[in-house]
Structure formats: C-alpha cells, structure tokens
C-alpha cells in the first residue's frame, strides 16, 4: 500500500468515527427544537419548538425545582468527597505505616464490589437514619470515594517532603500544613477530582432511584428517565431535558479539558 493511500484511508476512518461520536450531540440539540413526532421520525433540521419544549418542561415537570435538587446534591457531594478523600490520601501517603497500608489495601479491594451488592443494606441503613426520600440519603453514601483516595495519594506522592519538614520546623501543626500549604499548591489535582465527583453525582441514577420517592425531591436524571418511559412521552420535551442534563458536562469539559480528562481517567502510571 502506498503511503498516500494509507493516509487517505486513515483520515477517512478517523473522520467517519469522529462524525459518529459527535453526531448524537448535534441531533440532540436539533431534537430539542422539534415536536415529538419529528424527533421519532429523525428530522435533521432545526424546528420552532424550542420555547414550547422548554416551557413544557418548566411548567409541567417542575424543571426549576428538579435542577435545584441536582445542583444541591452535586455541590455537597463534590465539596465533602474531595475534602474527605484528599485528607485520607494525604494521611496514607505522608504518614505511611504498616497498619495504614493494610487499611489502604482493604479500601482498594472494595473498588471491585458492584454497587448493587451494597444497595439493600444501604437502603436499610438509610431507613434506620430516617433518610429515605431525602437528599442527604443520596449524598452521604456518595461521599467516601475510594477511587479519589487512590487518585489523591498518587498526586501527593510527588509533593516535596522538604516543604512539609520546613513548615514543621517553623512550628505549623499538621492540619495547618495540609490546609494552608499543601492544599493550595495542588489546584490541578483538586480540579480533576472535583470534576470526577461532579460527574458521578450529577449523573447518578440507581442510588437516587432507590432513595428518592416523591416528585418534589427528584433529580434531573430521574426526571428524564421518568419522562421517557411513559406510554406517550413528548420526545421534543425529552430531548430538551437531555440537552439540559448534558450541557453542564459539556461546558466543564470544554473549559477545563485538561483537568477533565485527568479527572475522568485518574492517574494512570505504568
């Protein structure tokens, strides 16, 4: 095969693949401006239903409330889980001891456990705490993220220990060192971790489905699933909801691409 032909084939293959990857995003935006029938028939041009679909979602499906629920849950999960998991990652890395390493290995093993296996006891636990159908019931089990502990430990391992020693000599206590010296200098790791936590909480489905029961506490993802599984859903409105659910992720992705990829993948080292 000549070099030119080879590159021609490579470019064709990559362009078609890239098109397939991006096309559903385009169609989703188009769909949010069309009627239900037009969406189902696969209309590819923009229509005039944008405002109608949005209004329908806002008035009949309580979009404002639902969005607020999703935002609230995500904010709490992001803040609490990065504080808790970065502290743990720091503890494991900087004060390593035999006992801590054993606990760390036990943590890592739990990453193998499918969530469905924890669901029943967690549901009973939340019932015990009287947190069924509450946002805290959704938030609490999502805070301890073993993956993020692993991620932070990897990142802290590159932090120069001399700086910590110097701060100790200067008389700072360990919490001060962590919060006012180490944490501010690890911004990119925190950004990546925040994106990871945001993605997991914003997109969570199974756990909120189990915990939340009333309409007024529903999250955006739950609403979309409900909306689409009815007998005669309005697919234009469904498309609008899908766009609204995807938009924040797209914005975060394009504005913080480097951290985003890091956050989604974690740190891979050979």
């Amino acid at each position, binding site marked *: 095969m000549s070099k030119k032909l080879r590159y021609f084939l*490579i470019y064709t*293959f*990559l362009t078609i693949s*890239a*098109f397939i*990857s*991006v096309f*559903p*995003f385009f169609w989703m935006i188009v*769909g949010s401006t069309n009627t239900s029938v037009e*969406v189902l028939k*696969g209309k590819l041009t923009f229509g005039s239903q944008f405002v109608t679909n949005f209004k329908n979602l806002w008035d009949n499906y309580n979009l404002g409330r639902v969005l607020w629920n999703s935002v609230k849950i995500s904010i709490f999960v992001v803040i609490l889980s990065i*504080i*808790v998991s970065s*502290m*743990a990652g720091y*503890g494991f890395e*900087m*004060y390593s*001891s035999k006992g*801590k390493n054993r606990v760390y290995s*036990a*943590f890592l093993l739990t990453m*193998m*456990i*499918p*969530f*469905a*296996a*924890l669901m*029943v*006891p*967690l549901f*009973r*636990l939340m019932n015990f705490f009287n947190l069924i159908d509450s946002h805290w019931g959704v938030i609490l*089990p999502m*805070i*301890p993220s*073993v993956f993020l*502990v692993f991620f932070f430990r990897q990142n802290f391992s590159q932090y120069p220990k001399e700086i910590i020693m110097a701060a100790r000599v200067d008389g700072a206590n*360990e919490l001060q060192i962590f919060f006012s010296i180490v944490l501010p200098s690890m911004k990119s790791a925190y950004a990546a971790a925040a994106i990871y936590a945001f993605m997991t909480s914003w*997109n969570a*489905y199974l756990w909120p489905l*189990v915990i939340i029961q009333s309409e007024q506490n529903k999250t955006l993802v739950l609403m979309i*699933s409900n909306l*689409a*599984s009815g*007998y005669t*859903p309005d*697919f234009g409105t*469904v498309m609008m909801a*899908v766009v609204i*659910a*995807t938009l924040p992720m797209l914005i975060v*992705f394009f504005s913080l691409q480097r951290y985003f*990829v890091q956050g*989604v*993948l974690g740190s*891979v080292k*050979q």
Partner: protein
Amino acid sequence: MPKTKKKIGIEKVWNRWGWIFISLMLIGVVMFIFYPIVYSLYLSTFSTRGFLKTFVGFGNYIKLLQDNYFILALKNILIILVVQVPIMLFLALIFATLLNDPKLKFKGIYRTALFLPAVTSLVAYTILFRMMFSNEGLVNNFLMTLRIIKEPIRWLLDPFWAKVTLIIALTWRWTGYNMMFYLAGLQNIPMEVYEAAEIDGATKTVQFFKITVPLLKPIILFTSITSTIGTLQLFDEPMNLAAGVVTGSSVGPGNSLLTPSVYIYNVCFKYSPNFGYASAISYVIVMIAAVLAFVQFKVAGERR
C-alpha cells in the same frame, strides 16, 4: 543496630496524625461499604418478606440455580461481555495507535471528538439512542436511504436487535474513554522503538501486535478489568433503553436486556420485596467479578 521496638516520640505523634487524616474516610467506608457487604452476606441466608425473616441457610443460593430470570440475566451480560468488550477495547486501541502517529494532522480535534461521548450521563445518552433507533427513526431512515436494508429493523422490539442496539450504544459511549488510557500509555513508549522497527522492515501490523500490544499490556489489563466490572454492573442502559417501548414488566423485548443489577433492583423494589434473595444474587455477582478479574490477571501474566 537492632531496631528498637518503641517508636521515638515524634514518630508516634505523626502516626497518630495520619490516623486523624484518614478517620473521616474510614468512618465513611466502614459505614457505607464494609458494613453493607458483611450485612449483605448475613442477609443472604434469610428469606425476607416485609418484616418477616426466616433463616434458610444456603436456600437462596440453591433457589438461584433454578431461577430462570437470574440465569437469563447472566446469559445476557455474558453475551455483552464476550461481544462488546473486545470490540470496544480493540477499536480503542486502533484509535490510540492511529492518533499516536506524529505525522497525523488534526490530532487534537479527532481526540476531542472521539472522547466527547464520555461526558454524557448514562441515562441521557441511552434515551437519545432509544429515539435514534425507533422504528421509523433516524437510523432506519439512514440505512434505508443507503439501501442497506429494505425494511425497517425492529431495533427495540426484537430481542436480538435490542441487544445489538445496547452493544452499539455502549461502544459509542465508552470507546473514546478507553482510548484515552491507551493514548496515555503510548506516550511512554519512545518513538525510536517504532523507528527502529521500521528500519528492520516491520510492517505497521507487525509493529502493532509485536510492540504496541505487549508494551501496553498492563493498561489493556486494567481497561479489561474495569470494563468487565462495568458490564457486570450494567443498570442505567438496560433499564432505560426500551422502557416505554416494551410494555409490561419485561426488561427489553423478551427480557433481552435483563441484567443482574436490574434483576436485583426488581427483586427489592418492584415485585414483592425479598431483600434476602436480592443479597444472594448480589453476592454471586461479587464472586463472578472476583473470578473474572483473577482469570484476566492469569491470562495476562502467562503471555508475558
């Protein structure tokens, strides 16, 4: 000098500080992971109906062997595991190899485009695919315009095609994600290795199988384990792909999209709830995940 058993004062203090840093996480993990997994094992030896709890020992596990729904759910994910995961990982590897070519132009655009599906919420993209694959929908229109098919394919109404749709959807969502791992790994292989192979007359195909694949083995292992666990846990997609299209309690046409996670959910919250039985199902899944991960480690290890 023999090691002294007593720690020096300052180290003892630091050791304590370490535990303080870990404490919050430890409480969380014990409460929300360790306790549930142990309690789940205990619960799996009971049959529970509401507040009624009867000890059945291994009864639930024996019942599982004769449970057609459970066996069907296992079959379904096994098919997806065997068909979808290899296709996806192979495609991801091809993309990564092509994008690693220093002479290729528009690399950034291709990489971004291919990764983009990974930002979508699982429920949202599933519903998007459900609309694209409707009977008179976009995909059928497209295939009929190109004269690839004469009649519309009943994507979401036929058990076989429903699985095909699920496989297409999963591949769309996760290929770019896995590609990024391979790209990161490829950056650690110096270009000189490929240049030397080129001089020795190795074709690109030989380079791919003799250099790229062996050197990326740890990452390929990692992605296949995460994909396997992901497949065993499938919930959002099968739950939403054909919901509303198929009537009744069937998960996809003829339960073709029933997965263990969906079944566990249904046993807990849809039919008359039996938490004990659900726990037994979940324990079997944990075991399968552990065995599969072990097998993958072994296979990767032997080929070294």
